[in-house]
């Protein structure tokens, strides 16, 4: 495959993995709730890239097929829905606490 085409499935996977790791680091280090949510989006899109690459029949002889592309479409919609809900919750938190710093969410512990 690599001989025929310069780009193989592993290149896509590499980009996907970079996106995933970036997103995971972003989720772990960002103190702003919106930053954390951006990290989640990066992780979801890293996974999506994997699905599309695995689903493409031009990259591998035996592939995930159309399932891969369709999962990617569904995930895009779900990510949007999840982001909408999470942003509304962040706004509600801001109304009550006047901040969206996740470190300030420390009233519940024990």
């Amino acid at each position, binding site marked *: 495959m690599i001989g025929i085409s310069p780009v193989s499935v592993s290149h896509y996977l590499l980009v996907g993995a970079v996106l995933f790791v970036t997103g995971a680091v972003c989720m772990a280090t960002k103190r702003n709730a919106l930053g954390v949510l951006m990290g*989640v989006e990066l992780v979801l899109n890293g996974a999506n890239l994997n699905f599309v690459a695995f689903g493409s029949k031009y990259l591998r002889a035996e592939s*995930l097929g159309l399932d891969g592309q369709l999962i990617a479409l569904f995930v895009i919609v779900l990510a949007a829905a999840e982001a909408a809900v999470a942003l509304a919750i962040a706004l509600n938190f801001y109304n009550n606490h006047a901040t969206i710093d996740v470190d300030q969410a420390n009233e*519940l512990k024990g």
Partner: protein
Amino acid sequence: MNLHELVSQLIIDTKGSVSGGLFSLPTADSSLGVFAPELCLCATIVLLLFIRLFKGGSKVDLFWVMLIGTGLALVASSPWKHLGSHPPLPGSLAAVTRMEIFTGMLVYDPFTVYMRSVLIGFAFLFAVFTKLSGIPDREDGADIYTLVLGSTLGMCLMASANHLLMVFMAVEMASVPSYVLAGMLKGRRTGSEAALKYSVYGAGAAGVMLYGISLVAGLLNTAHLPTMAAQLAERLPGMPSGEIMVLALGGLLMMVGLAFKLSAVPFHFWCPDVFEGACAEVNAFLSIASKAAALALLVRVAIGFGAIPPVGIEPGSRSVAQQHAPNETVSLNHSNGGLFALADEGEEPTTASQSHTGHAEGGDEPNASAAAIDGLAASRTFMAKLIAFLAAITCTFGNLAAYGQTNIKRLLAYSTIAHAGYMMMSVAAFLVMAGDAPLQAQDAIAALAIYIATYVFMNLAAFAIVAFLRNAMHTEQIADYAGLIRRCPLTVICLSLTLFSLVGLPPLSGFIGKFAIFASLVDGYEVSVSAGHPAGFLMVLLVIGGMNTAISLFYYLRVVKVMTMEEEPADRPPFVYPEVSLQGAFVWLVTAPTLLLMLNWNVLSEWAHAATLYLLAAA
């Protein structure tokens, strides 16, 4: 395959038969026919949202809509018909065996029937509970009930997922409304914090899980769980170590998402905080429905990675056969596959079932399937050890952390974590036995089903009492419950019974569930010894479970002691708690099964065993 055939196959899959025009009713063995409970929930959601648009609609108490909707859904799922002692004759239209519906996305088998009956039945009780506790008020009713039903719908899909896309979608459908529910009391600082924590952790866990799914699906070239098992069985023995690493990584990442839903250690951080910040009604929902669905999903995924399910029937095949030969009983041996497998180019223009059976590597031949199951042994052992390890630390950590809690909701949150650990033990036992003794393996899942059923009533009773006491006393601190036995003895007795049952003391129902699960661990060990590969970790698990039961006795008893032995505080503000009321009746209603189940639990046991019949192919 041309478009016409494709469309007519889809119509048969969805509605059961092509004849009868576009608007004919789906037959009882079609995808839509067996999906009726979920459709009822969908209709109720739409009705809840739209009823206020009409004149006079705002006067309607939406509680009744919710009650009737869930009631109809429960009737549609009718566990008494499918799991009872007189199920429909095998081969008849309504008989439940294993059927993959909607072109293999979901699976409909007795376990689906059982789990969704538990979930919908809980939603029904939950409606009554919220009506009596007064949260939500009339204005919020539409929002809260919509969220609860939407989440329940997602949980029903979790219990019947048969495709990795459905696994992810169902988890999201169940989670996203729960995030909002956690923060449903507006203007509460703690509520908004709980919702933020839940949504941030939840979104992160879902993202990680999706990445794991992408690795697994990409490596195995399929996202359809039974095909995945077949592929694994075929390829695992000779798989290069690099691919095995990727597969294990994908599996572990998927487990993160599942462990989050199960609130298993180390992904349990959200649970105590969310439980403390959210109101007791939402806690009841999260601790019961969400956990039951997550366990069902764990079973489905474990089977997807570790065992080849029996070959089922195709949607519509029975009605088609009946049309052709109405007097014959038919049994068709076809498994159907993903919709999109059909559309792939390069496949022979055969029917869906044939092309897929080619993929699934001989579900029809017993020899081939026995060899295939052996190929899965490595994957099963890996998962069994992983789940056993998670179960052990979850259970121990939950019980130890519960010890120092002062808030009753937080204490119950840790108790919920510990119970998730007990319930996961049975899945580990299931995986150990799945290869050598399918029937006993199914009994392990039956033990889980029994535990879930008893757990519904224990936790519902506990949270109902917490909610009603909060309405009367405006406090959720354990210390404020001091001397309650003098004020409301009946309620204190109910709460004490529930707590003793959560410990697992006989003769309460918690004992039955715990005993069944521990028995399945012993079974698992014996089976593994007789098969020649002793799984000693199951006995370790049994010891850990037993020790945890002893630890848990202390903190549950402490609550009982505070309520009964301690003096009433002199500065307690006056409060009224009517014991003889609808609330009191509800509390007794949900405590009664805990108390009385020991008298006759044959029915429950029978249902639970019927529920697990078609999970594994008989060896």
